[in-house]
C-alpha cells in the first residue's frame, strides 16, 4: 500500500505517494529528481548519500522514506544560498578537494555540520567527523585542509 508523505527539502514542500520499502535516498533521487545526493554502497558505509535530517547528518540509504514523513531535509542542492556557494564549497574548490566528485556532496554536508557544532576542530576531529564519508580517489589530505581552512577563516571573520 502506498503512503502519502510530506517532506520539506531545501525549504520546499513536497508531497509524494510511495511504497514503504523505498529508501529516502531513492525518493530524493528518483521522485524528487534531486540527484546531488549520491548512491554508493547502500549499506551505510560510504556516506555518499549523506543528507541533513532535522539538523543532523544521516545516511539517506538507511532511512525508510515513509518514516521521514513531516521532516525537514537539507541536501547538497540547498547548501548554496542565493546563487552564492557556501564557504565549505568554496574551500573545496580552492584546495582541490574534489577529484571525481562522487563523495563531495556528502563530504560537504559532513564538514558543514561539523563546523556548525565545533567551529575550531583539530585535524583529528575533522578526520573523525568525515570517517563516515569515503573518498574513493583517496583525496583526504586536501579535503581535511579545505575544512580546516574554513575553520580558520571563520575564526578571523565570524560571519559564516
Amino acid at each position, binding site marked *: 500500500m502506498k503512503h502519502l508523505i510530506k517532506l520539506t527539502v531545501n525549504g520546499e514542500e513536497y508531497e509524494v505517494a510511495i511504497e514503504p520499502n*523505498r529508501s529516502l535516498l531513492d525518493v530524493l533521487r528518483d521522485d524528487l529528481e534531486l540527484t546531488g545526493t549520491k548512491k554508493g554502497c547502500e549499506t551505510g558505509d560510504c556516506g555518499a548519500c549523506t543528507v541533513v535530517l532535522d539538523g543532523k547528518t544521516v545516511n539517506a540509504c538507511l532511512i525508510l522514506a515513509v518514516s521521514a514523513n513531516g521532516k525537514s531535509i537539507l541536501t547538497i542542492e540547498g547548501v548554496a544560498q542565493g546563487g552564492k556557494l557556501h564557504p565549505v564549497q568554496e574551500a573545496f574548490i580552492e584546495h582541490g578537494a574534489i577529484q571525481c566528485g562522487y563523495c563531495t556532496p556528502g563530504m560537504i554536508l559532513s564538514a558543514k555540520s561539523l563546523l556548525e557544532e565545533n567551529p575550531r576542530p583539530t585535524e583529528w576531529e575533522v578526520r573523525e567527523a568525515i570517517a563516515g564519508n569515503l573518498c574513493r580517489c583517496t583525496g583526504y589530505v586536501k579535503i581535511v585542509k579545505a575544512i580546516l581552512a574554513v575553520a580558520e577563516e571563520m575564526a578571523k571573520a565570524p560571519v559564516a
Partner: protein
Amino acid sequence: MVRFEYLEAGSVEEAVSLLDRYGGEALAIAGGTDMVVQMRYRELAPKYVVNLKAIKDLDYITEDASGLRMGALATIRSIETSPLIKERYGILAQAAHHLGSVQVRNLATIGGNLCHAAPSAEMASPLLALGAKAKITGPKGDRTVPLDEFFTGPGQTVLKAGEILTELQVPPPPPKSAGVYLKHSIRKAMDIAFVGTGVVVELDGGDKCRDIRIGLGAVAPTPMRARRAEDHLRGKKLEEAILREAGEIASQECSPISDIRCSAEHRREIVKVFVRRAALQAAELAAGGR
C-alpha cells in the same frame, strides 16, 4: 528491498499492541541502521514493520537517585555527546564514539544496538560492565532483566512476541569507581570490533579492588561477563601480575570463533591484553577520584 506493510506506533502501548497482534510476522524498527540493510539484502522479510521512532517519550537520558536511565530510542550520538554521560558514565560515551560514523550514530539507537544482539554490539560490553538492567514492556506489563540475561544467542534476546525494550538502567557510580572501553579493529572508525572490552573498577578505601565487572564483546555467541576473571580480582590490588592471570582466565572463559575478521586464537590473545589494560586504566582513573 523486501515488501512489507508499514505501521507507525505513536506510543509504547500502541507498539506493544501492534507487535502482539501480528506476532512473528511483525518486526519493530527504530534507527534502522541494521534493519534497513538486512531487509534490502532479504536477510529479514517481515510482513509488517512497526516503526517505534515516533514514540516521543522513549528518547531521553536522565539521572536520579537510582542511577542513569536511558530511553531505548536515545541515539548513540546523544549518548556520545551527553555531558551527563561523559561526566558520570564515561565508558558509555567512549563506546558510543566507536560505533559507526556520525551519520550512523545520529540514527542508531541504544535499544536497537542491543536488540540487534550482535555478539560485537558496541554498547553491550560497557553496559554489562556497568551492571545495567533492561526494562522490557509487553502485553502483560513491564519486567526488568539484568542485561547479562538479555542476550540468548547471536541476534537473539529474551524479548518475546509483543515485547519491546523500553529503558536501560544503570546504577549510580560508587565513589572511587571508573570504567574503560577498549576496542580492537583494523580501522580506527567504521569497523566492527574484533574484540570489545568494557571494564568497570570500584576501589575500596585503600588501593584494593572492591568490585570489578568485565564485559566482553565479539568473543562468544553473545556479549558476556568474564565472571571468573572478576572473581579472581575482587578484593585484590590490581597489579600487573594478577591482571595477567585474570586476562588468562578471561581468555579461557570466552568462546570466540574464527571468522572473516580474525581467528579465535587471535581474539583470545586480545582478550588477555585488553582485560589487563582496561582494568589497569580503570583502576588508575578510579584512584584519581572517579
